[in-house]
């Protein structure tokens, strides 16, 4: 039984209508995720960015093993929203199938596990359940309110007591995935002047002086590596790196938010913040 995180980005949804996503594959079910304390995203709505007072357009939502039903309200102020949830799949399931009941204009961009995003429209949908890479985790960095000034730098650190190290990575080894991606949140031109990535540090020079420029999203991977074999002889070979530390200098930008895997996002500050691998 594997628990795969799934993110559904709905857009161009009609007012006062009922949308549903029904799973047809036996052995696959929507779920609230693994029971790992309260750090998990679970079933959530618009929770991938922090501090954003988004308008709501839904009037009710219901989740069962096989169906996700959303009703939009008649006086909806917006037509897009994001749900994050999990898919429980038994080990023999390699792909899931189902159908969406949506208005004809509506689109759902589905990010299943570490796979490439797929776009679903009204009708049958299907998605391959990608294997979960052991030593890679997806990280999403969200630079809010980008503004020209000192470059934004995001640093990665591991504790010296941990049995390994971590580095930035562009893609998980041996899997078809979405890799490294930089985009502006609403599809406007990117306002990046420079971008440099070293093993432990990302530096982004912002090239806009507009006060309300679109937020930047950087999707990439964290990779954990074991320490050299000489150091592993003391019996710690079985342990893997569990915690990483992240900090950011946000320059003139409003905030930098990081989300690792399916954990809840956190603001990055100049002090180190802890994330679990």
């Amino acid at each position, binding site marked *: *039984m594997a628990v795969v995180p799934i993110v559904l980005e709905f857009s161009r949804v009609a007012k006062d209508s009922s949308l549903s996503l029904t799973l047809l594959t036996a052995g696959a079910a929507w779920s609230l995720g*693994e029971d790992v304390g309260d750090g998990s995203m*679970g079933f959530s709505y*618009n929770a991938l960015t922090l501090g954003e*007072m988004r308008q709501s357009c839904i009037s*009710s939502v*219901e989740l*069962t093993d096989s169906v996700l039903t959303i009703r939009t309200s008649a006086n909806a102020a917006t037509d897009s929203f994001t749900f994050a949830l999990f898919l429980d799949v038994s080990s023999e399931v390699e792909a899931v199938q189902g159908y969406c009941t949506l208005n004809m204009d509506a689109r759902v961009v589905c990010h299943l596990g570490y796979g490439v995003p797929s776009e679903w429209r009204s009708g049958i949908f299907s998605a391959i359940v990608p294997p979960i890479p052991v030593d890679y985790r997806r990280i999403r960095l969200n630079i809010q309110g980008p503004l020209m000034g000192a470059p934004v730098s995001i640093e990665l650190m591991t504790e010296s007591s941990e049995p390994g190290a971590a580095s930035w990575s562009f893609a998980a080894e041996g899997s078809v995935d979405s890799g490294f991606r930089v985009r502006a949140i609403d599809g406007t031109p990117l306002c990046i002047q420079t971008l440099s990535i070293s093993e432990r540090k990302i530096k982004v020079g912002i090239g806009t002086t507009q006060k309300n420029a679109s937020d930047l999203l950087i999707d990439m991977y964290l990779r954990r590596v074991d320490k050299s074999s000489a150091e592993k002889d003391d019996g710690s070979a079985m342990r893997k790196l569990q915690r990483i530390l992240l900090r950011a200098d946000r320059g003139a930008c409003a905030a930098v938010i990081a989300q690792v895997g399916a954990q809840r996002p956190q603001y990055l500050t100049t002090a180190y913040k802890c994330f679990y691998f």
Partner: protein
Amino acid sequence: MAEACGETGGVVTTDEKWRLFPAKPGIDIGRKGATVKRLASSGAADRPVIPDRTLTSGIADATRSDAEGKEPQPEDLLFFAHPIELTFYSLRANSEARVTLNADNKARWACGNPRSQLVGVSLLASPRGATLCLSTFTINHREIYLATNQACPELYVRLFLHTLEPAFSGRADLPSAGGLTIESLIDRTSLVERGLSSFSVALR
């Protein structure tokens, strides 16, 4: 009918409203400890009664984990699934409400029981059809978190609680002047105060 389980079925009695059925013949259930052991013999008299669909208690599908050739894990196998309704009242605009289960009791929020078909987790604005004034919500196994973007007169969250215990407890963190009622099938508690309060609700 339920006495058919006899010694091996253990917990099932006819006058008890809440029943916990073993997943399949030959599994013995301790009432609280959730200990599961396979019995060597499972005669016809030991067979548990198939629960009817009106019951709200349930257990996970043991046949599936058996098909994978794995030993079923006790904590996966046995629980009561209790429907719970939470009603949030008069939440202010741009405020947050949080309901967290205590970490020490082995209870978790869930989206149904194993026989659930169309009823699971639901969030509903009141009156029906009104916009759900939430900028974000998160429901995971331990926590329900809501953040409003407008004043929200009333909001229902219905979901299931999976536990073996006869009651569950937790904490609620409500915004100023906000209210919360937590209702199980047999018990209810109402919290109307600013800040952090703890609660306990009987289940059976």
